[in-house]
């Protein structure tokens, strides 16, 4: 187990109230769940997530980041805004 995972496991088991930081992600405890950047995860999920984030495989790290974005709602907002912007751009292009 890498050092990061050990630290995270320690933070998870301890009663420490402060947030845990991994890269630019912020982990907080709330009502028996863990909020990662505002998105709620179970203890099981968050362990897998930290594993993925700590992985040397960039695709796994990207996947983990997307999962966080999806959970905290940012992905939805990005998808909607992106879709609308894309629609406007394509419309302007074809009607040029």
């Amino acid at each position, binding site marked *: 187990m890498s050092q990061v995972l050990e630290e995270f496991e320690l933070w998870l088991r301890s009663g420490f109230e402060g947030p845990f930081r991994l890269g630019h992600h912020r982990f907080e405890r709330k009502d028996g769940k863990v909020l990662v950047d505002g998105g709620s995860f179970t203890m099981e999920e968050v362990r897998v997530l930290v594993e993925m984030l700590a992985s040397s495989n960039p695709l796994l790290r990207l996947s983990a980041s997307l999962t966080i974005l999806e959970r905290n709602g940012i992905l939805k907002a990005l998808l909607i805004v992106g879709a609308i912007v894309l629609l406007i751009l394509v419309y302007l292009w*074809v009607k040029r």
Partner: protein
Amino acid sequence: MSYQSRSSRLLIWLVLALVLVLPLSLIIGLVWLRWNILQTMYLRKAGIDWFKTVFYEGCTFIFAALFACLTINPRPQKSQLYDISNWGEWLQRRIGMGPSKPISIRLGVPRSLWIFWQLLKWSIAFAFLSYFNGLPGLGNLTVPMLMVLKGFGDWKLLPRIVTLPIFLPSGEELVSLIPTLEGQYRLLYAIALSILGMAALRLSIRLVGEFLLEQGNAWIRDIFIVLSLIVLGIILGSPFWPMDATMPYDFALTVILLAAFTTMATLFHFGVLGGNLSFGKRRRILLTGIALMVSTAFLCDAGIIAWYRVNWNNNWIQFEWMPLTKNKIEVTRWASGVDKIAEYPIQQAPTGNVERLLSLVRQWDQDAAYTKMKGQIGVNWMTLSDSDIIYYNGREYWVAPTTIYYPSDDWISRHLIYTHASRIIILDSHSGEFVSVKECFGLEHEPLIYYGEGFRENIYTGVKGFNEIENVTYKGEPDYVLSGWERALWFLSEGQLGFAFTPPQESIAMLYNRDILKRVEDILIYGLEVDPDAYPVSDGERLYYLVQVCINYPLHTEFSGSSYMRFFAVVLVDMEDGRLQGFIVGKPDGFLLDFYRSYYGSWGEIPSWLIPQLRYPERLLGLPDRAGQLDVHFLYHVDDPTVWRSRSDFFERPLQTQVHYIVMMVGKEPHFVGIQLVEFEQSPGRNLAGLYIAYGGPLLGKIELYKVTGSASMQLIGPSAALQAVETDKFVQQQRSLLPNNRLGNILLYSIGGSLYYFIPVYILTRVAEAVTTKMAFIVAIDALTGTKVVAGNSAAEAYALLTGATPTTEVGKEGRLRRLKEAFTSKGIKIIEPTALRANVEILIANLTYVSEEQWNQVSLAIDEFILNYVEGGTLKEVYCWYSGSDMVCFGTMEAERGIVKLNYLSVKYG
């Protein structure tokens, strides 16, 4: 409940009924009455079923009824607007004002309320759609519907239309597809777009509710469905887009976008996205795969488009000119009706006999003629409506029928006394001399004008106790007779309670819709418009206003830079009794002209007497403030890609000119034509680029462009430069400085003896007592080739003679012409007798001649010789009778008796 409260309730209901029902009944009654008046009037005076015509043979109501169904909620007892009321509860809960319990779900709207609401929506939509005959943003839809019903367009071509963005069409193919594109496809497109639009609207309302009520990811799914519907709408409109080399890829871009949005909607619907996450590998692969596929397709397509764009300029001909611009030119020329304009070098501009041509030069322009004619009215209750240029019996005139000018503005004056106008002022456009109606049109008397330009008031005729001005009575058939409740309702709406309830007589005859342009416009459907410049014509017995009807139908394909423009028909409005007769002018085209021709089936072919008087509509050719066919041709006559790109052969209408109608000699024949001079676009030298000639009369519809070629030796000055030459010429400047209130007239270009000359008259305004009149001071001739030779003369002939050094034609004068006419007989040994009276049983007019200028002499002389041969030399007595009709007309005749019947054969000659 007490008696008092019951009676007060009853009173409230009564008041409500009075306030709502009575005005509503009056409005409905008035609308019905107006429709009935129009229906009766047009059936009686035009042979047209007005209701059937303006409501598109009932299609208006069918279309409105069907499309209004889209407003009905397809789910019984459901209403999205009703559901919106839930949102308020949600907001209250969110801000802590309401109960914190979950929001109760409403099951539906009460049945009766639901039915009422759907009916109300349908009725409002029905009224809206009936009024507009179309949908906002989609334009009129009843015409495409009727076109389809009447068999225009071809359903079998729809698959080809759908694939246009993938397999790019040629210009010729596009032209052949346009009837189907404007008929079948546009109708289907409108239906599809309406359904998509309504679905998108309903989904949008629903998704707001879903979002506020926190119903999972349903709102995101609905957003993507709405976006998919929008993209689908865009894709359906693709056959109307302009199509260059990247079109198939642009089209693919929209299809990829549609696929992406529908996929997103599906993923959200099934919870693959946005649900409670698992970290399953299969799910990740599925999502990554979809994302990769869509992104790759999108990026590849965008990459191809980018490649085209990077290489655009070095492949401009293949990428833009061939697929787009060339086709656009072809389609636009066809649509605007300029594809048959023939082009010739300016050296070949039509010309004819010099003397004859100079005697036809239009020395009087519209403003000058109008000012001069104003002084001829003689009464305070008439004014000139407009001065129109006409061509009748080989001569060109300015004609100004009068209209009513109300010196007293009360209701009786406007509706019962000032019912008509009665003067028509006519001026010779060359000589500026006044001509009587009898001389010009051969009419025995000037007609009483009950229908004309600017006749905005309806009038009532034959009303007891009231006399029309000039103590005349309308003799024609009324447009409508008001009696009983109709009369009461009508005059009530006019605010005339006396005429409504205690009228001087039971039935009151009415002349309705007397403004000729409105009278014609009220029977026209979408895509047809009138030329506001109506002009008088005559069949020798009656006088009519001729209203020109043109097709101006917007085409929806962006391959066309113009609407569909054609000269469709003329409608004659009898000045005296308002009868309408329509005649089709346009030739069959397999499209809109044939459609309108079939729609106005009662309109016939042009009668032969009318043909010489026809001219090509000014509005169709184009005005400075309203583009027409010529404006399209100014750009779209270009065929060469380099010339197109460089704009080096584009024309523009000089500010100082517009379409002028003149008589032009083409060989031996005079022709009534509209001419338009053009200069090169933004040319600093203001050179003449060309001369458009739009023929009237028997050659109606023929338009020619006489173009200045590139040769430096043939550069001609344009009208702006000609004007400048006049304004800077020393002699002209001196002359003008001596003339107060002078102004320059129209700039006209004539081809005389193979060269081109501008003629610009100079007028002075003079004040006689309180009246203002105008005189032509002199006319300036300018050689268009150099622009340096500027000469002024008293007439066009004199100016031309001074300019070219030719001997001016000697005008022999009125007395000289009469003497010459008599000599034509006496020189052949025929005695002329001027009797005090002639009595014959039968009078036969052999020829009606005009001899007011010398170039007409040959024609007159030939006619006299023929008359002598047939009617004098065959007789026993070598003599003719000579008598006068008015001060300018002389008649020569012989008498013969045959079986007791005395016949007078004569010819009349207008000599002054």
